[in-house]
């Protein structure tokens, strides 16, 4: 935290009141730097606490650096900051934390997945034992079609450390037991959420700056193999959905219509099913014909048309291909 405060200004004050004690810490950064030991000294400590409705912590930064106060004058900076806060603290805010910027409350889009009678998102909870156990909740399913919003969202103690991740970190392009393709536009509806919670923040799979995932941590590696397992059925379904566009079945409800009819539901309120479920469809047979397209100079096409004594260019293509195939490819 002190690193963050140093970046903002030259003076800060921390006042913390709990029901059992309270303290005030005032830091003049220039003076503090002159201290060879870099100690922080409390200005007051009181063993007498406050009533619980008065408890809380106030951090105030003054003597802002010029670039910081300038940023706060820019409307667009305030918008971007708000958007950033909403993304990072989405989970905590979804659970009741209220945040505002310059007195304007921040709104969030809560994490949601599509659900209907036929379509169910997957939900799995894992607990990794230890002195302070790590609780991992994983969800996979469908959201609105958006290539930029698709991917995995990873939270550690309520704070977003990955948003819309589409890289190998969250299993895309992975090949370990399950093979998951790389992100592609046909997966624009994929959404995955992973929530890691632990009383000991040191066990959580985040980087020291708490702004990314530590992909090598044991906790994350265990979670990741489950994440990949939970992804597979969603990816299969999205592939099926994509194939359906090329060859829509005549006698069945379209998967697309079914997905469009499903309602977004907050993930906390989803039916808890351990596997993504969608109505089965018979495998669509890929057509066994192909079309070939190419361009040639008009003069040559006209000449070929004349020699072949046909009237359409389609016919020219067809006849020249057959001619080539007969002479070069047939084995008689």
């Amino acid at each position: 935290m002190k690193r963050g405060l140093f970046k903002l200004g030259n003076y800060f004050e921390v006042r913390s009141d709990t029901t059992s004690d309270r303290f005030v810490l005032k830091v003049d950064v220039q003076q503090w730097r002159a201290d060879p030991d870099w100690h922080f000294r409390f200005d007051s400590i009181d063993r007498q606490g406050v009533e619980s409705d008065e408890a809380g912590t106030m951090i105030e930064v003054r003597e802002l650096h010029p670039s910081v106060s300038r940023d706060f004058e820019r409307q667009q900076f305030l918008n971007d900051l708000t958007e950033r806060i909403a993304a990072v603290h989405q989970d905590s805010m979804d659970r009741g934390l209220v945040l505002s910027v310059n007195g304007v409350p921040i709104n969030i889009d809560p994490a949601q997945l599509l659900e209907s009678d036929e379509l169910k998102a997957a939900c799995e909870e894992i607990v990794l034992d230890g002195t302070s156990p790590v609780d991992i909740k994983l969800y996979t399913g469908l959201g609105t079609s958006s290539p930029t919003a698709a991917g995995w969202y990873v939270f550690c103690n309520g704070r977003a450390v990955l948003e819309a991740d589409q890289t190998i970190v969250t299993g895309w392009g992975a090949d370990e037991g399950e093979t998951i393709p790389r992100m592609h536009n046909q997966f624009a509806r994929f959404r995955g959420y992973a929530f890691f919670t632990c009383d000991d923040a040191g066990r959580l799979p985040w980087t020291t700056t708490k702004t990314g995932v530590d992909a090598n941590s044991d906790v994350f590696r265990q979670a990741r193999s489950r994440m990949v397992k939970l992804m597979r059925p969603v990816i299969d379904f999205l592939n099926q959905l994509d194939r359906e566009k090329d060859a829509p079945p005549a006698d069945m409800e379209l998967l697309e219509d079914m997905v469009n009819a499903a309602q977004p539901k907050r993930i906390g309120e989803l039916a808890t099913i351990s596997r993504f479920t969608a109505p089965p469809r018979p495998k669509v047979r890929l057509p066994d014909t192909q079309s070939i397209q190419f361009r040639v100079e008009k003069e040559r096409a006209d000449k070929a048309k004349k020699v072949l004594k046909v009237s359409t260019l389609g016919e020219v293509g067809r006849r020249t291909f057959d001619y080539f195939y007969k002479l070069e490819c047939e084995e008689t």
Partner: protein
Amino acid sequence: MASSPSFERINYGLRPAKHIERKMMVEAFRRLEPVASLKSYRYVGFGSPYFPDFSLIHRSLGISTMVSIERELSSERRMCFNRPFKCISIEMGEAGEVLSRLEWNHRSIVWLDYDKPLDIPKIADVKAVASSAPSGSLIIVSVNGDPGQLSGRLERQRNALGSMFPFGVVDDDALGGWGTALLFRRVLDDQIRLALDDRNAGLASALQLHYKQFFNFHYQDGVRMLTVGGILFDESARSHVGACGLDDLGFTRDSEEAYLIKAPNLTLREVRHLDRQLPCGSPGDISADFLPEGDVASYFETYRYYPHFADVDA
């Protein structure tokens, strides 16, 4: 195409408030002499086929490096035919395209005189200038600031401006009257400063560029229009900008509060009657009890810039 080019709908020469604005702006430009010789400036604008700003600026200030940006590719020949002076070069293309291919070692007066409301592409044009024009240059932007249809004003502007929409504006009513024009000024001011923040990042303070607004006009020949603009300057030019005395001109504004240009409708005979009593200390000194007081007061403020339209058999 959604509508015909605006020059086919309106003859810009016949809009009295716009006319007054143009002349006021030229008077302000004339004061830039302490910053740099006016003749050394380049003027960049949208000439359309009438080129009123180009004619006025060349005639009054002698600026003879002029660039007119024209987006209607089909009317290139017409624009070239109508160009009033040889020194105007016509650059065909969208403003953003042309602005990014111009050389920016030339101190410039750039007037992006749009007739549509502000949106992200226009802001990108403004930022293209703010991020390239050298110290001493002027950026001026005119946009339609009409609030439009009563319902959905906030929603419309949010869509048009995205994350550039001013922070914390949540009230539809705030956009009524001149509210939309005020909002656009805030966005333009914010975005010009953001472009400069980026440009200044890592530069020694002597090289950093600052922006000082001195135009903030509201006028209404039909729809509500906004013109906002100012000067870019570095530390070495700061005192010269101060020496221009731009703040002494009654119509300049360096803040959110705008100067409203009101052009009273007067007959030529009325104009001559008023002119004979001008200049004078205050509108109350003028005797013209047959005219509404407001019109006399407006004329008192604008008479040196007031246009005289007549039907000429040329």
